[in-house]
């Protein structure tokens, strides 16, 4: 009996060790989007190549926040200056095939709304989200930030309309949402570089806005093995 208990205890310790190793594994977080994701104007033109902090706008702060919270992560920057959501559709499959991250942060659409309806921007983003989910990776969606630079083109309404659709998309797919528009719009004039891109303070707000849904998803992923053990 004692020998059996000892063996059982040993097995449990082995399992706990395996779980701990899983928990401690480094998580790769790919950030996909346009020049706002690339970090313009601070790290432009280093873009689209998976560069890691200090490269990027919000990425360095996001990575430091997650590291400070005990999450071993590497945030990679795949933002491409001028990218549209149609570009995102075209590259998402090949990108994820090549990079195999655990998390994909998607924020795009700023470059589209002169040429595409909010509905098509939503469809394109949904395509990228579904491509991520199909690989078993975790997408987190960002709303489109405010745009006072192009206000004279009367783009505010389509941005607001698109963000309504993106929030609904996050709910429909049960994925995390970083609502950058809501986080930035109240103080946009102090958080923007030129009306279109965030300044350093704006990127820090974005990092904090990404942090919560990403942190929550990492917790959910890392707590799952413990849950499985308990269920067993």
């Amino acid at each position: 009996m004692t020998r059996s208990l000892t063996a059982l205890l040993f097995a449990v310790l082995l399992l706990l060790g395996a779980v701990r190793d899983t928990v401690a594994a480094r998580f790769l977080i790919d950030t996909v989007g346009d020049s706002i994701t690339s970090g313009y104007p601070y790290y432009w033109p280093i873009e689209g190549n998976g560069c890691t902090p200090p490269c990027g706008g919000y990425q360095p702060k996001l990575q430091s926040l997650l590291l400070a919270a005990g999450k071993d992560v590497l945030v990679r920057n795949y933002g491409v200056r001028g990218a549209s959501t149609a570009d995102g559709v075209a590259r998402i499959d090949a990108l994820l095939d090549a990079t195999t991250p655990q998390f994909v942060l998607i924020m795009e659409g700023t470059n589209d709304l002169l040429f595409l309806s909010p509905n098509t921007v939503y469809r394109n983003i949904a395509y990228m989200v579904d491509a991520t989910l199909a690989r078993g990776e975790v997408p987190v969606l960002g709303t489109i930030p405010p745009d006072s630079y192009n206000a004279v083109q009367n783009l505010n309404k389509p941005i607001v309309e698109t963000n309504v659709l993106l929030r609904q998309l996050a709910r429909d797919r049960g994925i995390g949402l970083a609502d950058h528009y809501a986080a930035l719009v109240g103080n946009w004039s102090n958080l923007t570089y030129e009306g279109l891109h965030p300044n350093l303070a704006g990127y820090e707000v974005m990092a904090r806005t990404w942090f919560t849904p990403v942190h929550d998803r990492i917790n959910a992923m890392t707590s799952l093995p413990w849950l499985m053990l308990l269920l067993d």
Partner: protein
Amino acid sequence: MSIKGRTRMAVLFCGLLLWAGPVAAAAAADAADALRLVWAADRGQGFDLFTAVQEKNGWGPSTRLVDGPEADITPACTVDQGGRLWLVWIVRDREGRSQLRYRIDALGRKPREGRIVTGFDDNYAPVVLIDREGTGWVAWASYTGSSDDVFASRFDGAGWSAPLRVHAANDQPDVKPFLSLSGDGRVQVTWLGLREGGYQRFQVQWNGTGFLGERVVADKTWEQGMHKHLRRKAPPLPRETRAQGMVTAFLPGNREIQAVPDWVFPLTFSEGR
């Protein structure tokens, strides 16, 4: 393609009439280098349309083409064989509605200008073409309430025909059209359609009564010599502009050369046969 973030402009090239027949060919030789540039810019009064013509050492002075209280954006233009500039663009009002408008220059007289009725509030990315018979065509995308679809209309001298959807009705986005002529002179529309597996380029041809023969177009179909030609001919853009559109030019030999918008084939151009 960079739409926002570096400049405030949307730009379209269009070529001037470069050749008027065998007798004029020599006289037109100097003009063969001249291109017309049309773009949208905000100079403190909201977005308006501007134009400039290529000169020996760059672009000539810009002039305001369209000045309205709303945002005039995403222009496209061409020049017919009579030298008249055909311009189409989107006017976006403060409520976010985007109407399709046109303007046909009348060589010194008051230009003909108005709205092209599409039946929808949200219209995008118009393009314009003159066919070999001199008929003007326009294509654009409209949000129909369920998805973006591509439509076309032709100018019969009195006005624009009722919009015709160029593809079968579907629930998927069809966007960013481009007009061109086939080798035998048929008007064709090329656009991007989101289908399973991503965006594909589709094309249909006008057969006199409708657009038929929808097919997927491979990139290499279009990759011919125009790219180098334009790179050599076109001077650097004015500082406030950026390339976004297409070039249509007529070269000696009456070969129509068209540049494909970079949203269809990034920075590639085609040469009509």
